[in-house]
Structure formats: structure tokens, C-alpha cells
């Protein structure tokens, strides 16, 4: 039996080995197959002009994001992981290098206020996105989502899902240090 013909019989095994390798990589612990990567990283913040949650307080416009590092957090009172995130946001809010602004996504004002009253308000400003259009312009597909915007108004980082201490320490804070220089 010729060498080449023998090799042919090994082909299925080789193909399967490649497949198994891909499956193994797919099992990597921090991989989330339902995660949609953000295409906004490295692009300027989309234009928006949102009204404040509480009348009389300042709203938030996209142009106002220049000159300082901002963490924009989309949240809602009906979202369970958002509740878990609040203590971490409260901690983060104490970091003077950034400003934390919250956008309430499709939430009745009364519910949002109750949420913040109960769990604490980590945000410098809280504005309202009733229609969800601003969220769509950001590429948001669920709550909570957080976006780190640099001093030039460019999006540098996005976390879909609630922030975790791990992500804050290993990804957010180092980036923050770089952007604050």
C-alpha cells in the first residue's frame, strides 16, 4: 500500500484533532459565546443629548464629555445584575480620576429613583433614555453595559454585563491610569 494512500486514512483523525482543539479553546473559562463585541471601541462617542432624571439637575450631552475621563453606565431598575453592580460602582465613584454618569434605560422615573434611593446613587449625573435610541447608537444590547470614554470623547472600553472586581482591577483601572495622564 503506497505511502500517500496510507496518509489518506489518517486524514479523518487529523481533521477530528483540529476540531477537538477548537472545541477545547471554545471551553476557555472566560469565554462567553453570546457576547457581542463592541464595534465602538476607538470611535468617538455617538451624539446624544439626554434629559436629567430629576428636573432641575443637569442633563448630559455628548460634547460635554471632552476634557475628562467618563464611565457611562446604562442601567435599569428592572435589571437584576444591575443591582449587584451598584456597590462596585459606589466604590469606583470615589476614584477622582473619572466621572461616573448613569443613563437609565427605558425605566419609569419613579422606579429609577426608588432604585437609586434603595441601593445608593454612585452617579454624578443621572439622565434618562426613554426610547432606547441612545443605547442603540452606543451598540447596547442589554443592561447593564458600561463604556469608558477618554478625554477626547473617544470610547476606549466596553463591558457588557455587570462589572466585576476582576474586570475593574485587571482592565478598567490600568486603562484609567493610562488615560488620566
Amino acid at each position, binding site marked *: 500500500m503506497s505511502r500517500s494512500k496510507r496518509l489518506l486514512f489518517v486524514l*479523518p483523525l487529523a481533521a477530528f484533532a483540529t476540531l477537538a482543539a*477548537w472545541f477545547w479553546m471554545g471551553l476557555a473559562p472566560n469565554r462567553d*459565546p453570546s457576547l457581542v463585541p463592541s464595534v465602538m471601541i476607538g470611535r468617538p462617542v455617538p451624539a446624544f443629548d439626554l434629559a436629567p432624571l430629576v428636573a432641575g439637575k443637569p442633563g448630559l450631552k455628548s460634547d460635554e464629555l471632552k476634557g475628562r475621563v467618563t464611565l457611562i453606565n446604562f442601567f435599569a431598575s428592572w435589571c437584576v445584575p444591575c443591582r449587584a453592580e451598584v456597590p462596585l460602582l459606589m466604590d469606583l465613584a470615589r476614584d477622582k480620576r473619572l466621572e461616573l454618569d448613569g443613563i437609565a434605560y427605558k425605566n419609569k422615573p419613579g422606579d429609577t429613583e426608588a432604585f437609586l434611593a434603595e441601593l445608593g446613587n454612585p452617579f454624578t449625573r443621572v439622565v434618562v433614555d426613554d426610547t432606547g435610541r441612545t443605547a442603540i447608537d452606543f451598540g447596547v444590547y442589554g443592561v447593564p453595559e458600561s463604556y469608558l470614554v477618554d478625554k477626547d470623547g473617544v470610547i476606549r472600553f466596553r463591558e457588557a454585563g455587570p462589572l466585576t472586581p476582576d474586570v475593574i482591577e485587571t482592565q478598567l483601572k490600568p486603562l484609567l491610569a493610562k488615560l488620566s495622564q
Partner: protein
Amino acid sequence: MIPELGHFALALALVVAFIQMTLPMWGAARNDGRLMALAKPAAMAQLLCILVAFGALMQAFIVSDFSVAVVARNSNSAQPLIYRIAGLWGNHEGSLLLWVAILAIYGAAVAAFGDNLPPRLQARALAVQAAIALGFLAFMLFASNPFARLDPAPPDGAELNPILQDPGLAFHPPMLYLGYVGLSMAFSFAIAALIEGRVDAAWARWVRPWTLAAWLCLTAGICFGSRWAYYTLGWGGWWFWDPVENASLMPWLAATALLHSAIVVEKRDALKGWTILLAILAFGFSLIGTFLVRSGVITSVHAFASDPLRGLFILVLMAIYIGGALALFAWRAPFLKPGGLFAPLSREGALLINNLFLATAAATVLLGTLYPLILDVLGLGTVSVGPPYYNATFMPIMLPLAALTAIGPLLSWKRADVAGAMSRLKFAALVAAAAALLAWWLEGGRPLPLIGIAVAGWLFAGTLGEFAGRTRVFEAGAIGRMRRMPRSAWGMTLAHGGLAIAILGMTGSAAWKQEDIRDLKPGESGTIAGYVYRLESVGAAEGPNYHVTRARITLMRDGDTVTVLEPEKRFYPEAETTTTEAAIHTTGFADVYGVIGEPDGKGGWAVRFYYEPLVAFIWIGALIMALGGVVSLSDRRYRIGAPLRARAARIVPAGKGAAE
């Protein structure tokens, strides 16, 4: 107490599986009859142990024993009995128990009915079957124990997902598992043949009934699943190219190819290496499917709650079984004696083309399903592969294959007269043209549906024509010839005819579906496809574990009332989920499908109606295919055991059966 008994039974099954795996295999190597003979009682004992475990878990579900974790997570005391029972396999651990149960059933069946198998083949095949069982039993006992307990036991359980609370759950998973777990038997036989170093016509004949049984169950299982999705998901779709659906389609394609290539091995002693490879791949696809559903590497609406650790376990099992099998193949298959030769234009050639197309189709589905994963792990970004991809790639493979299916049975072995075969298909060509013309006249000129209709007509008429030609149906003695026709020939006719009917259904409903969506207040009406539907009222009611919003809609045609439809929305307070129950009126040739939606806030309701031409043919065709499998299975040449021995005593008239 009883759950403990079940747990113990599983552990016992593990021990028995180990014995069944090692001793008969060793016995076969040393030609030791006594060791080989251990396989049969071991297989029976394994089945018994697993049935005890299954019964124990079933008992826990039926009496709602919430101290068993699986019951607490998937059942509720308010749930109707049928869903407490069927809920056993509506979750990861319970469905694994169903998995090993079916492994054991096939093994025991080969032990009980395999008396005409050569002892070494039977011993080795049962040993391999036990090896598979060993892996999955270990998986269960160490990583997915269905008998894990909760202490203290909760007062009531979390309800079974309401979408699963449907009669479909009683039929679809068991039938599906009988199918793709059953392919393990073909796999075991293939490994046994590789170890023996011999694949011959006899082997193919022994393997065929088990493959056929698995194939027909898989066909029926996919059919049930599609039908269930159709009436439960509320928009009249029947296939979504969801990764888990694809996971059942790939083994089906491979099993269909295997059935056909096994014929060539049996009749002409050719395509041996390829057939062995197919038997390995068919079960390999089943394992890939199991992996995809339970590991979480791919998102799917069908997936069980995913756990990468479990995924790793299954991946290791896959590496052992499939990797091991393919390594054995690479080593031993080159030594298989090459078989009979044939001209390219012959029935063997046609079956080879059949396999080529089916293998390409399976590879296409695999590619589409895994591509997002592959790009993602290689860091190349994300794409999403949906129905548009499969429609563009899968259909151009399957439609020509279906067309060729009409020609294949008309070709003779070794070298065929293709021109003669084609001339016998003149009538089929006429039927195809007429069907396409009719469709064009009724529904307009888009080419793809017309092609689908033409192929369906061609295949149906061609299959009937082959049957008519074989039985010389217009000559005297036709009934006698029909009765003498082997059951496997009947099976082929039914299966190919059923395929044609299913293609007709798929084309009709995909191409010519109509919909009407509007807000209606009680008393107002809408129209669809010549029907008028009038919303009479929307009321509330109570089910055993849900609240119902039920609409009464009168369906009328030409002024006469056809029927009253009552679509529902059900809200399950325990699970906080809403499901829709569509109301379907079928004329056989089309379905009128009504769904009640949300209130529009102005006193009206969103109502949507669909008109689905020919959709029922999909499932009727699939069931006819499965029936063909049943008929074929009952062929006397595959019936093994006592009846065959009795018949052997009769003198076979000269000429009868000699053509085999």
C-alpha cells in the same frame, strides 16, 4: 430510599459496563468462548440496572420528591402528571440518564436478537457499546448525578420551563435519542469489524437493521421536533438552523449515507472503508451534538444550562471514542481487502454519488454551525451564520440529490443502461413539468419554488414509476408480484416517496406562506388567503398551573363559517413565563394558523394569522419515510432469531431469492 437505590443501580451499571467492556473483548482476542459469552448476560444486566435507576428517578418525579435536586429544579407539584414524567428528560442530568438507557437498550437488543451474529463480532460490538456506556455512566456519577440530594428539601420545586410543558416533550426527546444514541450500535459494529480486520457483505447485513432502526427513530424524532416548534413558537416556522437542530440533522445525513453505502458493501462488497468511516462519523456527529448542547460553547435556544466543566468531560469522552475510533481506522482500514469493482454509471456509482452529496451536505451544516466558534477562538472576530447561509448552500446540494434519487433505483448493478433508465422516467418528467406549470399558474413565477415543486413531482412520479415497472403493475399477476416484492423494496419506495412529499411541503410553506397582522377589537375582522377571520371575544380562564387569555375567532370562507379557533396565551406564574398556543385549522392541503398577541391599549388586540400551504406534507412525508424504515426493518432477511430458523427448514423454490 428509592433515590439511593437508583444511585446504587447506576454505580452497579458502571461495574457491569466495565466487565462487559473488558472480558468479552479479551475473550474475542483469545477465541475463548466462555469469556465472549459473558457479553450477553452483561448487556442484559446493564439494562436492568439502568432501568432500575430510571424507574427510581421517574418515581421521584412522579411523587414530586423535592429532596432530589433535579426534581426540585425542574418540577413543581402543580404540574400535570404527564409533564412531571416527561420532565425527567427535560434537563441535563435526566436526559443523560435517558441517553445511557437507550445505549443499554440497543446493547441488550443485540444480545437478545443477535443469535445469528458470529460470536466474536457480537462480543466485540457489545464490548464497545459497554465502553461508551462506561464513559457516560462515569460522567453521570462524577459530574452530573441525577440523584444528588438537597438538604433541607424545598417545599416546592421550580417549575419545568413552560415552553416544554407540551405533549411534544413526551415524544420528541425519547424518539430523537433512540435515533442518535442508537447510532452507537453501528459505531460499535464498525469498531468490532476494524478490530477483526474484516468487513464483508455479511457484516453489512448484520449492521443494517440496527442502523435502520436508529435512522427511522431519528427521522421521526426530528419530525416531531419540527412539528412541535411549528405550533408552539407562534409564527409558523418549522426549522431555524439553530445549532442544536443542526446537531440532529448532521447525524441524520450521515446515517442516511450509511444506510445507502452499506447496501453497496452488502451487494457488491465494495466501499468498505468508507462505510466503516461513515459509521464512526455518524455517531461522531451525535457526540458533537451532545457536546454542543451541554457545554455552552455555542448559544442556542435549545441548550441546557451550560457548564464548561461538563463540556470538558464530554470533550474528553469524544476524544477517546472518536479519536480512538479514527486512530484505529487509520491503522487498520488500509488492510481491509479491497472489494468489487464497478463502472461509474451503475447503481453502485449512483449510491456513491448519493454518499458524496450527503457527506457534502453534512459538512456544510457542520461548517455553518461551527464557523462562528472557530473565528471566535482564533480571535478573528464574530460572524453570525443564519438561515440565509444554509438556504444558499444546503438547498443546491439537496435538491439535485433528490432529483438523482429518482434515477438511482432504476440503474442496475455493476454497469447500468442510463439511457434506458432515463427513458423510463419520461412520465416522471411530464409530471414534474405539469406540477411546475400548475404552481406557476397558481402562485407566480419565482424560480426557486418552481424548481422545488418540479423536483418533488419528478421524485414522486419516478418512485411510483419504478414501483410500477418492477411489479409490472398493468399486467396480470401484479398483485402477486407486489406481495412477493421484498419488504426492503417496499421500504425504499415509501422512503423515497415520503421524501418527495416532504420536499413538496417544505417548498410550499416556505415559498407561499402568507400572513396578516392587525389590531382587532371584538367584532372586527381581517382576511387571509380567501378566508375571513372575525374576533368575537377575548376572555380569561385558569389552567392547572397557568392563567389563560383565550380568544374566540370565527373563521369563514365565502360567507360560511368554517370553524371557531381559540388561540391562547398562557402565563405561568411560577416560572413567570408566557407561552403562546396557536390555533390551527388544517384542510390537509394548507394550514390556517391564528395567534393572539398583546392588547393594543385601545380595547383591541394584536392578532396575526398565517396561511401555510402544504405545510402538513412536511411531517406526513417524514412519517412516511420513517414508515418505510419500519417496513424495511421487517424484511425477512433481517429478521433474526427464531423466525429465521423456522424458515430455514422450508425448501426454498429454485430461483426465489437466488438473485440476492
